[in-house]
């Protein structure tokens, strides 16, 4: 039934859009009809006005946060792959390090942010290091799981076909590990933005995190919301970029 699937497809788009629009409409109505002070809850229209009005300033602040989050995301990808490769290469090393790494995940690592400020100062390096520190782990675990989940039969087959270890790595292990690596990267994308923003809360003189904190201390709520919108766009863009990269890489590898 082409009609039913067409309707279903329409609903998959229309329903979430509808709830979003309805939510915004209710918000707007509540904020204006009940005359809620803009300090408590600015109406969506106020936020849009703020977004347009301070667009230049927001873009300027976002350039710091965005660039640092991107750099941290790339760094955590590199560190994650290196750690995974190290752990996958040797069983004793893995047995030695893996449980410690996992235990390290259970602690609230955000609390370490001030230490990075003590060590590396209040500039970009401390935020980059902190952000990489909190976001490399999902990549490392994902890649390691991927490398280990390679079908042993496939490897044995390649060995009996006299494939070299590097060939096996390229043609068998990497394709198996790629989906796991990318799902780790998607988590890392969100975490790296969080890491940069927390760093900016604590130390920075610029960036969206400090902008939000400043607006908060002045009770300029519409400004906070406008900055949050920009921050969400950065987060989603980073996630989207990784999803796009995954599509490209996986297609290239299959060919």
């Amino acid at each position, binding site marked *: 039934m082409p009609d039913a699937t067409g309707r279903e497809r329409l609903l998959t788009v229309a329903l*979430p859009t509808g709830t979003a629009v309805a939510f915004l409409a209710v918000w707007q109505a509540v904020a204006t009809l009940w005359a809620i002070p803009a300090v408590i809850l600015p109406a969506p229209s106020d936020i849009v006005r703020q977004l347009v009005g301070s667009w230049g300033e927001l873009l300027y602040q976002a350039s710091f946060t965005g660039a640092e989050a991107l750099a941290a995301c790339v760094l955590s990808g590199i560190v994650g792959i290196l750690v995974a490769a190290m752990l996958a290469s040797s069983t004793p090393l893995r047995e030695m*390090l893996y449980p410690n790494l996992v235990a390290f995940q259970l602690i609230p690592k955000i*609390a370490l942010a*001030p*230490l990075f400020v003590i060590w590396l100062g209040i500039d970009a390096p401390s935020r980059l290091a902190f952000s990489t520190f909190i976001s490399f782990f999902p990549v490392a675990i994902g890649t390691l799981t991927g490398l280990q989940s390679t079908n042993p039969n496939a490897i044995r087959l390649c060995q009996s076909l006299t494939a070299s270890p590097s060939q096996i790595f390229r043609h068998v292990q990497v394709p198996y590990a790629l989906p796991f690596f990318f799902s780790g990267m998607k988590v890392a994308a969100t975490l790296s933005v969080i890491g940069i923003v927390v760093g900016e809360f604590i130390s920075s003189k610029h960036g969206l995190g400090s902008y939000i904190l400043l*607006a908060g201390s002045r009770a300029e709520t519409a400004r906070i919301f406008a900055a949050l919108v920009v*921050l969400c766009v950065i987060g989603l863009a980073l996630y989207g970029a990784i999803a796009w990269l995954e599509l490209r890489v996986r297609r290239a590898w299959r060919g």
Partner: protein
Amino acid sequence: MAAIRWRAWRPIVLPLLFAGALLLAWQELTGWLAVSPMLLVPPSAIWSVLVQAWPVLLAQSWPTLVNSVVGFLLASGLGIALGGALVVSRRVEQAFWPHVLIFQLIPKVAVAPLFIIWLGMGPTSRLAFAVFLSFFPIAVSAATGFRAADPTALRLCRSLTATTWQTFLRVRVPYAIPHIFAGLKVGVTVAIIGVVIGEFVTAQEGLGYIIMFASSAAQTALVFATIALLCGIGLLLYGAVALGEWFVRRWYGAPISAGGFE
């Protein structure tokens, strides 16, 4: 015989040995290289500060612990309820699931100052923020879990004329348990993070406040001691959730894997 025993113990002994060696190297290197105590203090100094400041730290860890636990419990209730509500109807799921997913992706930490404007500098804002942060991972994994039920089992229930509620309780819930607990384990860590960030931003009480205060006074040993205590709280709460999972799984009897009953 000895070889077999060594192989069984190796996964436990090796990590502990490594952690011990790391602490020893840390201790020796900071002394040997004469690292400034403002940058890095040896573990022995952290320990002595921990002992010395224990009454203060214990008093300050109380609000952090209480807010984390209460926030986590509230988020668990809300998250599991929403996860269950999403699978009630296909339409509800279509309407709300994308929004929950998008909320997972955005950096929610940045919302912390809003909670202060709304709820003030007191513990309520930190509690609400912790609930807000840990709610989403729990809701997503609960919804995933409730959807993970074997369709064959669901069809069987329908043909046996089980009510929706019976099916939910007897089929969907057991299948969802491993997913829910995976979400709860993430959620409990995130709840602590939420409280600590709240304490960073409002700075009135709690271990997050101590960390901020000590780092601005360059009392690195106190920062480390507080972080150590916070790690202890994190591991404790995680352990409590893991224990809860063990009890629930035992109570349900059958060994439930994420794939279903086997």
